[in-house]
């Protein structure tokens, strides 16, 4: 090994049940970059850090939400949520959703998005959900490729789905039959 070589940690996908402050800092950093890059799950510009921290802490206390994070080189660089139906929703109790799914631009190209999506899918399967749904802006080409290459079917397009700060963009709605996925 040369003086400048080092061991690169393997990417890790994990569930987050509580935040270490350093992990929350990293998650907010990653989300800031994703928002600037146009993948802001609602935000057009990065919110004040206190606002974003409150958002992520809030995710952890909502009982139907599971938060997953992608870690690279030991630091959180992206996240996604499995959003489950409330218990009163018996008719659609078989459908779960993926939300706030992103990998920071500086951590792309390492297979983290595929891994993160697979972990969320496996959690849904383990909890006996049959369908996984996700919706994205038409401009999120990387996410669209990821979904379409992983068995997600686009079943609807919604006009004026989102305002991107300049114009309205459409939204693409995808679903996946989890019966097609091999359990881990």
């Amino acid at each position, binding site marked *: 090994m040369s003086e400048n070589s080092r061991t690169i940690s393997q990417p890790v996908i994990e569930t987050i049940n509580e935040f270490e402050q350093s992990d929350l800092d*990293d998650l*907010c950093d990653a989300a800031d970059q994703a928002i600037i890059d146009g993948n802001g799950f609602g935000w057009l510009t990065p919110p004040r850090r206190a606002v974003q921290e409150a958002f992520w802490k809030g995710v952890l206390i909502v009982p139907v939400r599971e938060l997953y994070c992608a870690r690279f080189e030991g630091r959180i660089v992206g996240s996604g949520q499995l959003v489950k139906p409330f218990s009163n929703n018996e008719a659609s109790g078989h459908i779960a959703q993926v939300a706030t799914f992103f990998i920071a631009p*500086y951590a792309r190209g390492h297979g983290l998005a595929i891994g993160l999506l697979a972990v969320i899918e496996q959690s849904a399967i383990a909890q006996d959900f049959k369908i996984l749904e996700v919706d994205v802006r038409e401009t999120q080409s990387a996410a669209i490729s990821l979904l379409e290459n992983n068995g997600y079917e686009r079943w609807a397009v919604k006009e004026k789905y989102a305002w991107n700060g300049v114009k309205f963009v459409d939204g693409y709605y995808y679903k996946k039959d989890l019966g097609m996925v091999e359990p881990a």
Partner: protein
Amino acid sequence: METVIIDYGSGNLRSAAKAFERSVSEADLDMEIVVTRDPSRVRHADRIVLPGVGAFKACKSGLNAVRGMEEALVDAVIEKGRPFFGICVGMQLMATRGIEYGVTEGFDWIAGDVVKLAPTDPSLKIPHMGWNELSLQSTHPLFDGMENGQHTYFVHSYQMTTANPGHVLARVEYGGDVTAIIGRDNMIGTQFHPEKSQETGLTLITNFLKWKP
């Protein structure tokens, strides 16, 4: 030995601190990384890092709001010649002026202006965001172990233009030449984020921590 990362309210410094701590650990350096807003600590530090995100004017205002900080920086960097590393807007503040929301005075350590990016290709988006290939313009000691074409992570809408082309140590191409690294004497600045630039960023940080200008 103490390297200080200056906290003046410009974004999250933990990310930068972690990267520097990792370099210290991997290079087995006898050094402490301290995040501080205490000018006296900056004045007595062995090495100084000035990060910064957002607008030039806001960052300069934030720095000015910390009583005695700019004087401590001048004392440590200019008078005592301590190694200095500016990151993103922290680098831009080394310029004479920032031309963003009016004209704002910088430190004037490296003569030049910070101006809006103007890529010749209109399809290139601003901010310039993502990975880009460094074109090294010099054989600076901080480039030990680095090569032309290595990628670093950028997110910025403004860039520094220097009066002396020799102060530009590396460039990238983004619809024209964009300043990526500046430096002279005991100071260096990167427009990109070394703390988010994986291997290349860690190499640069480690070299800075070992640098004896």
